[in-house]
């Protein structure tokens, strides 16, 4: 029993340090990911064929390559052509770009589901394309994309653990270090798992809450 407390004394600070790194990975990546996703999504739906084509290629690549491969490319691969990133930097870039591709899928779906008639009405009123997108389409698309994008952020919380594989020591990495020193793999990873569970549950709950807050009566389902 004392062993347990002793371990908590040693283990807890290290895990806490790792958790802070995890936050510093997740928050920027989530933000960048959403911004990239909205931008790319809009380009895919409203851009001219060339731009849309580029955007689609980006999405196909970054959704097709496993995240592990992307992480390795940014950290181990780019030095090959002279670009060096820290483990942290490479992780944030990889997470943001990968996440952004997935976000753009949800944004695209949401944009396509907005009834065409509204856009025609906006144009008839004299809105420019940009104004129309900003004032009429995005506010509605945001609500439709919220579940998908919110889910993607929950995924990001889980996949942030992969930063360990390119030596960025966040929560999982710290857990592995401690576990390999003490051989208490089961205990340590149960704690680590529990922490992630709390994070993802909290995020899901928050997402749910947001969805209710922004609900428009009668505006539930996709596409008509």
């Amino acid at each position, binding site marked *: 029993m004392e062993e347990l407390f002793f371990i908590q004394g040693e283990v807890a600070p290290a895990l806490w340090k790792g958790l802070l790194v995890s936050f510093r990975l997740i928050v920027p990546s989530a933000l960048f990911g959403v911004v990239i996703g909205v931008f790319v999504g809009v380009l895919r739906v409203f851009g001219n064929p060339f731009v849309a084509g580029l955007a689609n290629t980006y999405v196909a690549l970054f959704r097709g390559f*496993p995240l592990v491969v992307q992480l390795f490319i940014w950290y181990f691969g780019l030095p090959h052509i002279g670009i060096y990133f820290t483990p942290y930097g490479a992780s944030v870039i990889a997470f943001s770009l990968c996440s952004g591709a997935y976000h753009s899928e949800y944004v695209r779906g949401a944009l396509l589901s907005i009834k065409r008639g509204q856009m025609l009405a906006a144009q008839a009123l004299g809105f420019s394309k940009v104004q129309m997108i900003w004032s009429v389409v995005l506010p509605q698309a945001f609500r439709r994309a919220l579940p998908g994008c919110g889910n993607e952020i929950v995924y990001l919380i*889980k996949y942030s653990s992969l930063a360990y594989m390119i030596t960025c020591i966040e929560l*999982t990495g710290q857990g*592995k270090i401690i576990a390999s020193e003490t*051989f208490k793999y*089961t205990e340590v990873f149960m704690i680590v798992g529990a922490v992630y569970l709390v994070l993802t*549950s909290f995020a899901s709950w928050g997402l749910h809450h947001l969805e209710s807050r922004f609900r428009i009566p009668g505006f539930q389902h996709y596409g008509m």
Partner: protein
Amino acid sequence: MMESLAAIREALPYLLQGSLVTLGLVAGALGLGLVVGTFLAVGQVYGSSWVRRLVFLYVWFFRGVPLLVLLFLFYFGLFTFFQINISAFTASVIVLGLISAAYQSQILRGSILSLPEGQMKAAKALGMSNVQGIFLIILPQAFRLSVPGWSNEYSIVLKDTAVSYALGVMEVMARAHFVASRTYEHLPLYFTAGVIFLILTYGGTKALRVLEDRVRIPGYSQR
């Protein structure tokens, strides 16, 4: 540039062998996920309230804890705690499978719930037991409806197999890193690995589309 292409060509057979390992992981995981997922879905739709609670807990756990953490927990934890020794490959299949089961159960559950109530009623009216109704009438239809969802699940699990590299499974990514650390051709090799995954994804989703056409019930468009 030339050395890169040469390095790729030399490593290609080795990498492609790795894709067999990858496919083995995917097949095992999806298979396990299908069996467990079906039981979870049936339990969630037709079970008593405590069965439903258990399923909910299972789904919450396996969708909430990261894959990497579960791999470590299972592979190392099992060994240190229970003294059971299994291969990294087996451990990966099991963990990937249990996670996939959580997601597949929700896909299947959605399909089951989208079927009209009358199907089960007619089955019962003919004297079928609940079990017969579920396995002869509901599931054959629910499975067909779930094929698009499985396409998505296939591509997700395929990419997740790369994480098993952390346990030392010599799949595509692990092999790419192995060769790269010897030849220093990191970028070209990882890019090649990525392309292999793209091809595997494309092939798999194509195959599933064929499956979808094969099992389609004549005259039955979307619900």
